[in-house]
């Protein structure tokens, strides 16, 4: 019966859901009675939702579906067991899809639609918060009957809504409650993957790269190996984060997940070709922006400079390099208008940030590199001492 109700109310995985004669209310009422179900009101609502979808009236469909969820949440509140949770989850995912469908397909006047969409969104969050409270307060019930196991799922649904409208600051409270859970490791792995993915995205947006890297790694490792699409999504964010630590993706990895977009970029970073690196970002800026990694890639520039100088150093085999030479190199591989002062200020900054070990001599106009390990690895650069300036910048 449990499975029946869950799949019956689903709007997605049911091919017989066309609005036709077979699905008359009488027929369904009969099914309900046969199964001793008391979902009459919801069944009627469900059918009208299907009808509205058929007619492409997504606002009506949303309202109907919202009423279903409201009723189910009300039942949940008085129910001491958790058998209805899968049903509620199905309904709220569908509700979110309807919200998106409304945004995408509804073609009424723009301003009115915007207002309505915001209103729907608010209603969605309200009902989800209610559902969340019921489940998270259910601490007395024995583990088998507790509704607590689903709170991560509920939070994920809300995260998806907030991420769509890019209001990341509103998600802080939600993610905090999950992180504070003493039993946060007992949530289903599928829920955890989504949760850590969205948390990671948010942390990239806020510039907390180390936390983001940790959380996205958890998500990637937990992700099922057949869900290539999700793994690719995670990798799009995780690869640049790892690059910041000096870990470059292998060709094999990029081929496996079809991430051609990083191929050239990786090459240019390895080569230290600043000019091409910049061009590559400029050409794909829209794509990178959509992924939310544009600024992250811009932070890699110091690493590219480091690689360039390292390449030169290995060729020159000399610890003392005239700044004039560096200027010439920069003219070729970065901005053709680089002058002495710019090259010098670049070197100063690299020494300050720890990407280069050594010192500059103004009198001799030379840079003197450290005898031991003049080019620390990305990981060393990103250690605690320099973390703050490297993560956020000077402020």
């Amino acid at each position: 019966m449990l499975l029946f109700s869950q799949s019956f109310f689903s709007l997605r995985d049911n091919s017989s859901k066309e609005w036709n004669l077979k699905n008359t209310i009488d027929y369904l009422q009969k099914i309900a009675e046969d199964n001793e179900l008391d979902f009459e009101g919801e069944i009627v609502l469900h059918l009208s939702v299907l009808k509205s979808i058929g007619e492409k009236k997504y606002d009506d469909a949303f309202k109907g579906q919202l009423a279903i969820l409201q009723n189910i949440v009300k039942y949940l509140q008085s129910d001491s067991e958790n058998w209805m949770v899968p049903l509620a989850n199905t309904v709220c995912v569908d509700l979110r899809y309807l919200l998106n469908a409304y945004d995408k397909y509804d073609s009424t006047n723009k301003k009115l639609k915007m207002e309505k969409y915001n209103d729907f969104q608010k209603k969605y969050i309200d009902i989800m918060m209610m559902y969340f409270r019921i489940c998270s307060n259910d601490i007395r019930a024995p583990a088998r009957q507790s509704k607590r196991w689903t709170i991560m799922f509920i939070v994920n649904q809300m995260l998806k809504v907030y991420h769509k409208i890019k209001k990341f600051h509103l998600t802080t409270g939600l993610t905090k409650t999950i992180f504070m859970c003493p039993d946060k490791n007992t949530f289903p792995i599928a829920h955890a993957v989504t949760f850590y993915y969205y948390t990671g995205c948010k942390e990239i947006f806020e510039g907390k790269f180390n936390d983001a890297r940790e959380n996205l790694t958890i998500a990637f490792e937990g992700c099922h190996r057949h869900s290539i699409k999700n793994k690719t999504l995670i990798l799009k964010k995780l690869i640049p984060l790892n690059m910041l630590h000096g870990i470059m993706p292998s060709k094999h990895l990029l081929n496996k997940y079809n991430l051609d977009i990083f191929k050239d970029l990786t090459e240019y970073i390895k080569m230290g070709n600043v000019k091409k690196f910049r061009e590559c970002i400029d050409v794909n800026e829209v794509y990178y922006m959509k992924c939310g990694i544009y600024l992250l890639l811009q932070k890699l520039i110091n690493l590219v400079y480091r690689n360039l100088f390292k390449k030169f150093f290995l060729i020159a085999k000399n610890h003392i390099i005239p700044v004039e030479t560096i200027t010439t190199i920069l003219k070729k591989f970065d901005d053709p208008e680089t002058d002495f002062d710019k090259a010098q200020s670049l070197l100063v900054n690299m020494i300050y940030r720890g990407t280069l070990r050594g010192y500059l001599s103004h009198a001799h106009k030379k840079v003197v590199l450290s005898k031991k390990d003049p080019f620390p690895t990305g990981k060393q650069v990103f250690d605690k001492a320099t973390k703050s300036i490297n993560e956020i910048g000077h402020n």
Partner: protein
Amino acid sequence: MLPVKGICMEMCPKEETIMRKSKKLVHQLECDPHKMVKCFSRSAAGNLLSKPHILRPPSVLKNTISYLLNEILTITNIPFSIIYDFIDDRLNSIKQDATIQELSNQEWMAILPPIIRFHAFAAYKCYEYDVNTFDPFLNLKHFHESIFKIVRIFLEDSDESTDELCFEMVSLLIVTNLGDYNVLQQALPFITKKSTLIKKAVLLSLSIMNGNFGHLFEIYNTLPAIHQCVISVQLPMLRRNILKSMCMGFNCKNNYFAISILTKILLHNKVQETIKECQHYRLTVNGDKVELSKSLFNNEVDEVKQIRIILIVVTSEKRDQIQC
């Protein structure tokens, strides 16, 4: 519920004029009784603000702004701090009127830019004032409230006619917060617009974020005066960071650095200012050279309160930049 529409066609409602005259609350800049301007008053219990006869419609609001910025701001025989306080208060009341009437995006686009420019200019003009006469934090707060609002409006609906304004505002937001990752995140959707001004601002901010100050001087000189104003205010903090990183980079015995070059790098106007700055951070100045050393650099002291003098004559600049 429909928003209220104002019907007060004066800069100041009759009610308030009478009240303020009787209570002797007329500001010294409001000598002419016909040119009084509505005060900002907080919404509180018993203080109903949404009465049509005390609200000014958008056209009156626009005229009030041009009166404030073209006639009051140019007064020179009264201390600027008093002028600032007056205009700041009256602009607040304009924003309040506009908010209560729920103006359309187009109307906001006409009202906000002069207000934003005024705060940007004030940040520069009042930089050296004592914190009791001018609060830079509060000024920037007002600035950000307005500029974030207008940036949001540009995200919602903008067309080619407003592009020019959009470029100016977005780039102004970026350069006011040089190196700020979060502000850059917010400005990102605009980089696809292919505006050189935004591009320059983003490039500068990214370089500062990555600690590369080589572009600062060059880009600074190509920006409009109002942008220079807000960068100027950040210079003390930037200079400190530049000097600190240079001390790390040139850390070696008997390594002297020419002050004339340092003056250019630090965007100072005069050599004396550079010497003062170096001495402030306890660096040894020796003739026309300074010893940059990691151990000497004093990290504990505050920044030197010195900004770059913008060479445009202030009055004419106001005419160019702040006029609506």
